[in-house]
């Protein structure tokens, strides 16, 4: 863990060398999800509600997913950029070091410009939580935090899976976008608005349902029952990360260098 923070510190310093560029990038990163959110707002402006969900309820869902996504992009970026590491043969260097490969890849890159995206989602989160007074209880706020944390795990898991494929294909697979960008785009709305097959896939295979639907129902008093259960649901995200790490280990063992 200490090593991880050391990596973090070094990257922050190096990115801060180009301050103007850094801030411009961050502002740009602020605007991309902002436009998506504006679209969401305008849709509600025209239609009023979405299958029984109000604007602020969907905004909350949007904020949770985008917050998780930007956090994982910020801190698990190393896996996203992994193909270049393999392509250049730099991964060989990591292998000879006496530390876990997952940690080293994780530390190989951080994208702090995502702070723009992060801030944007924070605004939406604060705005929606402030407008939904039902959430103001300790267990619910705790669940909210867990949802975000577990969302980060899910996205990180997908990044790791995509990176693992590089061991065989050298190049990054664009299909992974279906699950990262596509998953984000889809999970920013409550899962119940989609067709059954989509909902099922993204609950049982990739557990977005564990952060963007089941606990959300509890937060918004849309379901009866105990408080403990929805909190437990959120750990589906953490559970997803475990097999991903195993697959990663498997990939590392089958790694053959490009020799460059």
């Amino acid at each position: 863990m200490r090593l991880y923070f050391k990596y973090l510190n070094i990257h922050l310093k190096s990115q801060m060398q180009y301050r103007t560029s850094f801030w411009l990038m961050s502002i740009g990163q602020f605007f991309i999800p902002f436009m998506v959110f504006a679209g969401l707002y305008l849709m509600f402006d025209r239609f009023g509600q979405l299958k029984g969900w109000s604007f602020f309820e969907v905004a909350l869902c949007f904020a949770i997913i985008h917050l998780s996504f930007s956090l994982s992009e910020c801190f698990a970026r190393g896996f996203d950029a992994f193909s270049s590491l393999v392509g250049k043969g730099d991964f060989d260097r990591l292998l000879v070091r006496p530390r876990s490969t997952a940690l080293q890849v994780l530390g190989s890159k951080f994208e702090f410009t995502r702070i723009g995206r992060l801030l944007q989602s924070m605004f939406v989160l604060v705005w929606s939580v402030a407008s939904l007074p039902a959430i103001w209880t300790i267990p619910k706020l705790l669940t909210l935090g867990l949802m975000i944390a577990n969302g980060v795990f899910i996205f990180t898991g997908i990044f790791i899976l995509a990176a693992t494929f590089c061991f065989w294909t050298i190049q990054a697979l664009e299909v992974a976008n279906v699950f990262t960008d596509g998953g984000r785009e889809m999970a920013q709305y409550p899962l119940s608005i989609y067709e059954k097959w989509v909902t099922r896939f993204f609950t049982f295979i990739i557990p977005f349902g564990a952060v963007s639907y089941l606990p959300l129902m509890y937060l918004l008093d849309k379901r009866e029952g105990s408080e403990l259960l929805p909190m437990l649901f959120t750990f589906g995200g953490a559970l997803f990360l475990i097999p991903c790490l195993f697959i990663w280990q498997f990939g590392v063992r089958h790694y053959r260098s490009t020799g460059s």
Partner: protein
Amino acid sequence: MKAYVSIWRLRFINGMQYRAAALAGMATQLFFGFVFIMIFAAFYAGSSGSVPISMEDLITYVWLQQIFLSFIMLWFRDQELFELITSGNIAYELCRPMDLYPHWYSKLMAQRVASALLRCFPILLITLLLPEPYRMGVPPSLASFLLFVVTLVLGLLVIVAISMLIYISVFWTMSPIGSILMISVAGEFLAGMVIPVPLMPDWLQTIAYILPFRWTADFPFRVYSGHIPVSEAAWGVAVQLLWLAALVIMGRLLMRKALRAVVVQGG
């Protein structure tokens, strides 16, 4: 002229190399199409009263967006051109006995066409054969279809002219990020990529109609489905031509100005 045709051919063949990437891209685009349609359908399901565009037309609109994505994206990264400018290798480009503007213009256009041709037919076939609620409609008449082809090509010419301005601006900013990123994000929004233009509130529609972005995507797609009837579309073609002329003239002027002040960064 012959030189530009060869550049075009080279770029085109180059673009056709990446078949695996195209396959992956197609899967992504199909997925996004499904997600968008489901979201819009969910909104439509709860709405009472009239909607400005029917669900069938909207589905066609979404699929056309996905099919011709490489015609619409404002931000079609050509790292090569950026590097030419920032690394100083632009000097070589200037030595060539051809005009830089049409040279780059044909290069950029060939990239888009190659990428679209690889992807559009398979997706088109799939979307036309999908089961009912998701199937893409066909144009109401032959006239609509022909006009769609004309407007789509004009739209492509306009989008390349806009993206040329982005590349030219790099001469001044030396960095393709930040502000340009914002312009392209806003441009894609106004082209109807996030929510279709007919669903925007009136004030925003007015803005979208004034700016050139929607003429590249929203307009041809609505001509296709007949949402904009043939009689009205003729006016749109005139507007497209006007924009094209204005953008190309502006681009050429700015480029000449930029090249006069160009500083080749050693090396």
